[in-house]
């Protein structure tokens, strides 16, 4: 998983950016540290999750947007010194959404910092226990508005994956699977399309 992260995320152009970002953020390195060389280091991430969801019902209640669609290109936005990946997501089907979002809309999904790691041995969102999005891949997502204060002041059109894990990757016409280890169902299906789409648990 680690070795093919750049092909999966199609973020190779970001490697240069992220290395530059991390270098710019670095404190002066003490000479006696075990300073990693570019060839011999791995970058590791771990997250502590703020919310725990174990059922689709809980997820549905907590999410303001439930959509299927395709991940597009990504860019990096920094908060302080921390780079976040923000990915365009083109909606095809939706089962819960505000009226402003319809089939064909493009929203933005903010992910963890895990996607932007030095190119020598990058870690991934999955390593941190979080769902990551790959450009060109289709997903079913449960989403919440992204905000720095409250939902009334949410960043327009930008969302986060509910609980960090509520992403299922499309594997066949109707079937979506989750690749993370969680208590959420591993396989969901979508019947119908557009606003009439219905989600059911397969496994």
């Amino acid at each position, binding site marked *: 998983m680690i070795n093919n992260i750049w092909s999966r995320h199609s973020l190779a152009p970001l490697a240069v950016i992220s290395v530059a970002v991390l270098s710019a953020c670095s404190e002066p390195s003490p000479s006696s540290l075990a300073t990693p060389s570019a060839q011999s280091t791995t970058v*590791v991430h771990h997250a502590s999750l*703020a919310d725990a969801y174990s059922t689709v019902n809980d997820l549905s209640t907590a999410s303001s947007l439930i959509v299927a669609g395709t991940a597009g290109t990504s860019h990096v936005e920094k*908060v302080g010194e921390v780079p976040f990946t923000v990915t365009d997501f083109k909606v095809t089907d939706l089962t819960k959404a505000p009226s402003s979002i319809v089939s064909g809309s493009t929203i933005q999904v903010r992910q963890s910092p895990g996607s932007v790691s030095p190119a020598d041995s990058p870690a991934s969102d999955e390593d941190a226990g979080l769902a990551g999005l790959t450009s060109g891949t289709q997903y079913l997502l449960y989403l919440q508005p992204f905000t720095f204060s409250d939902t009334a002041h949410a960043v327009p059109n930008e969302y986060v994956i509910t609980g960090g894990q509520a992403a299922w990757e499309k594997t066949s016409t109707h079937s979506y699977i989750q690749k993370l280890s969680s*208590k959420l169902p591993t396989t969901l299906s979508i019947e119908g399309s557009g606003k009439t789409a219905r989600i059911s648990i397969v496994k």
Partner: protein
Amino acid sequence: MSKGSKFGAIAASSTIAVAMVASTQLSQAPVAEAYTKTGCHVTSNTRWYLSNPVQDEETRAEDSMINWTNYAGNLVHPVRWPGPQSGSSYIQVVAANYGSVSWDGYSTWTCASNGLSGKVTVEINRYHTANYGWVAEQSVYSHEFGHAFGLGHSGNDSTPCSAAANMLPNTPHRAACNAYYPKSDDSNGIKAIY
């Protein structure tokens, strides 16, 4: 005493002895190890500092470091330093509002080929922790410091509180189980690493 009854008595006492040993072993049997390792570790006397200290963050962080010194010995210098210091590994703690992303704590570190981490960055997401009680907030600090020392996640959402570790991945679960400081599984993990 007949031969039969003698053997019977020996057999009976043996059975009792075996039962007692088994009982002792059962009562002393440790909970199955759940800790995981990141594969990285820090050097002794690792320093730490807060990039943007505010009072409750300092308290949570310092209390967590003091708790860890009970298990990690001289791995960490519990007193906060004003900034990165030469001559030691260090842990940078940054508490800021990173917005409604799913995590309340996030650790990033580089790991050299010899397994040593020179610098660990711990981000605390004030968007979430500012609304936490002290148990949940301290559990996040302590959890992230556990990562810094080389522990991965332990257990999952099904782990009972009796076996809960500070390295449980979800804050609500840790807080519900009062796992805001290193527990026995965390201690076992540290002993296995160092």
